[in-house]
């Protein structure tokens, strides 16, 4: 779990957005731990498969626990870890392919449960590790190795999707601003419930869109990201809906639901209502 491990042979390409996300996550974990006076080893990072998932091996400094599992299944693993051990701070790190294609089926159920984990999604709009195939967030018509004549699917608007299925905390981030991003991730961890911090994290090899994201005045390119306006009410779902459907991509906290209990809170409430029988008592039911 350090880049200095000689046996670990994975490398992100120079300029990869995921470097910034890693830095941001380190900031967030350190601040979260010092604020709550909890040890680093009470954090668990559940990583997906893809370039982004390798983040779990590259975290510097004091080490959190990690789980580098199988493609698309970060949320179910995080679900089991969190519900088995609600005392742990569980963070999911995954890419747009892992989370929004093969793993999409797991997002809505966790939103409905309001599972108290924080997901940091690195969206580069492409499958990097398998060398440049289209992903759910690749634009319609774009040519990639698996769409040689142009992509036939519309691109997914992840923020709008999260809002539509009832994710209780939604933030949008950009990898080139690790300090700001760290604050968004920390806010996601602080949120009691299911939180997603969706990060634009460009792939310099297969989908280098830094220039489009931040713009280039010399070339007359307008940036396609903008800061969430200060007056935006993050508890206003309608306002959030307008924001995520704007012509450009907002960066900041989009939405936070209020007063929605988490799954472990619901379970605690259930325990108060139900009589727990010991195994011995259960067995007696069958005895004659």
């Amino acid at each position, binding site marked *: *779990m350090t880049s200095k491990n000689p046996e670990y042979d994975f490398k992100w390409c120079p300029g990869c957005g995921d470097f910034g996300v890693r830095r941001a996550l380190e900031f967030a974990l350190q601040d979260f731990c010092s604020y709550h006076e909890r040890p680093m080893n009470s954090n668990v990072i559940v990583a997906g498969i893809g370039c982004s998932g390798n983040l779990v091996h590259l975290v510097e400094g004091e080490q*959190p*626990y990690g789980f*580098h*599992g199988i493609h698309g299944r970060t949320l179910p693993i995080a679900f*089991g870890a969190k*519900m088995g051990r609600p005392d742990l701070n569980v963070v999911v790190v995954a890419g747009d392919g892992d989370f929004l294609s093969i793993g999409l089926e797991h997002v809505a159920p966790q939103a409905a449960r309001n599972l108290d984990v924080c997901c940091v999604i690195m969206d580069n709009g492409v499958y990097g590790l398998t060398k440049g195939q289209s992903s759910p967030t690749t634009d319609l018509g774009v040519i990639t190795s698996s769409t040689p004549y142009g992509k036939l699917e519309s691109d997914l608007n992840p923020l709008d999707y999260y809002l539509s299925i009832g994710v209780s905390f939604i933030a949008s981030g950009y990898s080139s601003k690790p300090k700001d991003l760290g604050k968004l991730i920390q806010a996601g961890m602080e949120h009691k419930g299911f939180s997603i911090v969706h990060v634009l994290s460009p792939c310099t090899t297969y989908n280098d869109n830094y220039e489009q994201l931040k713009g280039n005045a010399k070339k007359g390119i307008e940036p396609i990201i903008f800061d969430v306006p200060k007056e935006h009410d993050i508890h206003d779902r309608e306002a959030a809906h307008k924001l995520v459907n704007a012509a450009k991509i907002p960066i900041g906290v989009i939405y936070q639901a209020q007063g929605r209990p988490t799954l472990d809170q619901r379970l605690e409430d259930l*325990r108060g209502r139900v009589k727990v029988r010991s*195994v011995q008592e259960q067995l007696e039911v*069958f005895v004659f």
Partner: protein
Amino acid sequence: MAKRQDFVVRFAGEGGQGVVTASEALARIAADVGYHALTFSTFPSQILGGPTWTQARISTTPVLSPGDSVDVLVALNEEAYETHKEDLSEDGVVIYDSSFTPNSSGRMFGMPFDDLAKQAGDIRTANMVMMGALANLVGMPVKFLQDFIVNRYLSRGQAIVDANMKAIAFGVERAASTTFQIGELEPPIKPNYKQAMIRGNDAISIGALAAGLDVYVGYPISPATPILIYMERNLIGSGKFAYQSSSEIESIAAIVGAGYAGKKAMTATAGPGFTLMGEGIGLAWMAEIPCVIVNVQRGGPATGLPTKTEQSDLMTALTPAHGDQLIPIIAPGTVEECYYGGALAINWAERYQGPVVLLSEHSLAERVQNIPKPDLSQIVPEVRATYQGTNGYQRYDGYELSPMPVPGKPGAYVANGSEHDAMGDTTHLPSRHIQMTTRRFSKLKLLEENVYERENTDAPIAVMPWGGSKGPAMEAYERLKAQGTNLAWYYSMRINPLPPKLLEELRKKELVLVPELNYLGQFASFLRSHGVNAQAITQYTGLPFRPKDLVNRIKDAASAASRKAVSV
């Protein structure tokens, strides 16, 4: 004429006609008065309608199979009569509902079950009309039924008791007006130990809980759903978690996550769900995470036969994932073993730090049987070796099992489904793949236990069933023994790893005959891979073996082998 040792009653009709309750009620009454009872049921995969049948076998001694044929057939409609009449024993009797008239005659009589129940004062007593008739046919004292009614219903008022008494009397009267008898049943020998009347699936649940299960995540699927329901109702205390997942893929990943976090975790499914779990089971093997997967087998592949029994998932269970692995398997053969097997599976997972498959099957899952009351004191919950040191631990160091760090304590590492080095970082070095593969397989040694059944071990030819075929095979073996056939008997619910001493013994046999419910002869094939000269006796009907069929097939296979030995 000698009295009967046992009889089989089959109730056949439409789903929703109370067919299941009838055989269970009979089994409970019989067990209550000291007989041994075992039900078998098979029904269509629908809620109402469709041909359904269940049966109860009542015996003076413990029985482990549904038996050979039917002594009394209770047919609630014409289709049921036509379907099941072939299974009647020579002196079998048919009781049919008067709503139809069978187009043949013989040892049969009709009764208007519902009308008689109404006359008795409660339509719900139709079952007791049947019971009264049955008791008369087998010469079972009516007092047993009456005592059962008083015990069960007196608290609900005298009116219900009276209605049931009348219903019983109607049944007795009608049967007595015929001349049919199927032979008097020997009086019961009431066991001098405490008993439980329990279904295989519930026994698995209680066994797992007795071993300290913390987390259960499962998805509804026949015939494993009752385990999910049991857990949702009972696994709710502090630090416990039971949940219905959105898919089997979610179930397996969730229990791997819980196992990683330090909890004893389990899921239960059947064939289709088990196939979906393959990748996740591979992850648990690779990352060395304790967890238990119950596969209640049904007919396959694909949706297959959802409500029929089969033993065709053995090969899948040994290697459910891609790549090199051999998953530990426990296959209970009786309801009692479901209990002990459920507990052993949890213990094995903790002991070797990996996934364990408990391979049950439909016929065990849905079977209600009286067993000696499970002994909680016999279950000694095992706990995984956990790491207690400081940070900087090499979790995957060495070629053998090592203590597992628990999140929240020092020793942070990456549990990794990719091939990894000692600290859990991904690597592709050949030396590491060799070390880790060796390490993962070496841990199976920790599960080798020389616990197995053996009898008449000098015989050159042996019978060795597995799982739910144990019952019919044991009955066939006992009959062959009584006929003077020289056969050895072996049995173990520990399928992988097999008890090493058992393997040693089996390798010395000229031939090991393996009755199993699949086409391929999967367990025989597994035994051959261990150097045992095993030959399968297969059946793939969706139903369990009948002891009488096994008697013939074992005899034929054994004599063919002997002839071959002589001609050489």
